[in-house]
């Protein structure tokens, strides 16, 4: 077990190094003078150019530049954003809770609906409900979510006036400290009446949009996994013992059917982050995805470089945790490899 853990953790080191190399190489490929790319300043005097070239270490050999980059990253220095002059890491950490909160509620939505819907479809295999769910889930994973977001805004927010169009909270009516960065938690802590509900109302549409594709995937996965389990001997035994159908399905079948579903959920962090970029852009959600796209518009390459690296690092880290947890849950994994 310990050997498996150590090996799995060691395996992420080359990935991290490669990620650093990728972001290091990417910013070098940006057309234009490297000093101008990194400082955002144009038309510098030759002296100033030479000064920055030395200051930024661009007069060093490439391999030294890379080592210096790795060294800085290892010390938590992800560079300074050109547009805000803040540290990239600080900006990221300020915005990341918003992305995390949105992703959490999106997954909550996807699991809360996807698992029961998929299980029910498996139980009623071939029936009208099953076919309807399969069709809806096909729509779900074929959906361009940026359009889905616009449609929801159009009908729910603009036409019906039910939910807010953008942001995390109504800034005119509510202002309070945000010690955690999670709006729902901060709203609860603030003692401002209605703030929590307002934060939830802002979360509904973005969470639905971000959760739609995972919902379709989870529903399909639960269905097929459940179908497999329902034909197992132990389910037949449970039925033969005279247990009620709801107990057989809910306790014996569903619990075992959920293992592959949990795998899918654990591994969907990468696609969640990709979806968050779009969802946050549509709803002006102040998270890291929105920030990343904004930094491209502002030609803020240090922010882009740091942002891509940090988002990818989160994904690699979460996948590592998922793998380690599996090692504990399912000993076959840690012994087999």
């Amino acid at each position, binding site marked *: 077990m310990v050997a498996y853990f150590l090996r799995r953790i060691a395996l992420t080191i*080359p*990935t991290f190094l*490669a*990620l650093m190399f*990728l*972001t290091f190489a*990417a*910013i070098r*490929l*940006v*057309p234009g003078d490297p000093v101008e790319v990194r400082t955002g300043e144009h038309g510098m005097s030759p002296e100033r150019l030479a000064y920055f070239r030395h200051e930024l270490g661009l007069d060093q050999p490439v391999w030294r530049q890379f080592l210096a980059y790795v060294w800085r990253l290892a010390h938590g220095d992800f560079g300074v954003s050109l547009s805000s002059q803040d540290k990239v890491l600080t900006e990221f950490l300020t915005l990341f809770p918003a992305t995390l909160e949105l992703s959490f509620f999106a997954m909550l939505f996807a699991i809360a609906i996807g698992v029961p819907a998929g299980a029910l479809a498996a139980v009623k*295999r071939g029936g009208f409900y099953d076919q309807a769910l399969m069709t809806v889930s*096909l*729509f779900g*994973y*074929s*959906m*361009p979510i*940026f*359009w*889905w977001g*616009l*449609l929801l*805004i*159009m009908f729910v927010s*603009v036409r019906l006036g039910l939910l807010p169009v953008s942001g995390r909270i109504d800034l005119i009516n509510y202002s309070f400290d945000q010690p955690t960065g999670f709006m729902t938690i901060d709203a609860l802590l603030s003692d401002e009446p209605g703030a929590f509900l307002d934060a939830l109302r802002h979360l509904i549409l973005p969470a639905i949009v971000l959760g739609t594709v995972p919902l379709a995937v989870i529903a*399909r996965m639960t*269905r*097929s996994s459940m*179908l497999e389990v329902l034909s197992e001997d132990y389910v037949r035994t449970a039925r033969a013992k005279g247990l009620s159908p709801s107990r057989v399905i809910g306790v014996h079948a569903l619990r075992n059917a959920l293992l592959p579903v949990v795998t899918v959920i654990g591994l969907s962090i*990468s*696609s*969640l*982050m*990709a*979806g968050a*970029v*779009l969802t946050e*852009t549509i709803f002006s959600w102040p998270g890291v995805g929105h920030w*990343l*796209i904004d930094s*491209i*518009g502002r030609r803020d*390459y240090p922010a*882009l470089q740091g942002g*891509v690296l940090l*988002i*990818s690092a989160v*994904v*690699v880290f979460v*996948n590592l945790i998922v793998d380690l947890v599996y090692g504990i849950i399912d000993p076959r994994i840690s012994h087999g490899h």
Partner: protein
Amino acid sequence: MATDVAALTRPIGDEAAAVLAQPSPLASFWAAFRENRGAVFGLAVFAIIVLLALTANVVAPHSPIDQFRDAVRAPPVWEKGGSWRFVLGTDGDGHDMLSRLIFGARVSLFIGLSVMCVSFIAGVTLGLAAAMTGSVADVAITRLMDLIMAVPSLVLAVLVVAVLGPSLANTIIAVTIVYLPNFVRLARASALGELNKDYVTAARVVGVGPLRLAASTVLPNCLAPLIVQAALGVSSAILEAAALGFLGLGAQPPTPEWGSMLADSREFIRSDPWIVTLPGLAILITVLAINLTGDGLRDALDPKMRRG
């Protein structure tokens, strides 16, 4: 099923003999594919979209980039004030929506198919190379693909486009890089599965060289899952490219690209909903049609991969 039984219970004749004879692979594939009504429907819709894209010059009522200054944001024909001149209305710059949507099919299909072709060929080559050469090359290729998979797809595509600059060609490059690992991993896994089988050993013993072994012995037996992946890859590529276009990082105006049309429509979300609705609908229909076809392909090509 009922017709099969009927055919088999008839007295033996030429027809029954034909049924009993081994059908050609293509015929048996088509017979299996045809059973899935959704897949046939999807294929039909996809064929229509392809036809529209190919004949866009003839079919589209207007040029996709002509601006009709006298008819900016004209409503579609079924709305009040609509006319047959602009069947689906015009957008904020006075472009004819229908023409832009038809030409947009050309752009999206071009992106989807080029991404699929390049990543299929490059992916299969790399995957087979990884599986058959072993050790160093295998580790290098697998690690590189792991790296690409570690970065969320759209984030990687955004990085590539941000570095290379937004354009149609760079969209294709970005999306190809993102989807390459799917093909490499699939080709490698299938090839590894086949390499231990007796027929490959037999071919080796007979003295078949490595290139021929890869191309004509192993590859044909790995094709089924790769073809399915290729079909589904087209729809993913179209979605990804549209997302880049929506973020302003894809094809630049006035190219009629569905994603960027959606982005331009955002300001009319309150006043002119059809400008927002139509491009997204075009994306959804195209992706749905391809996914339906892909599901049918999967069921028909490989009964083991059959869903449910």
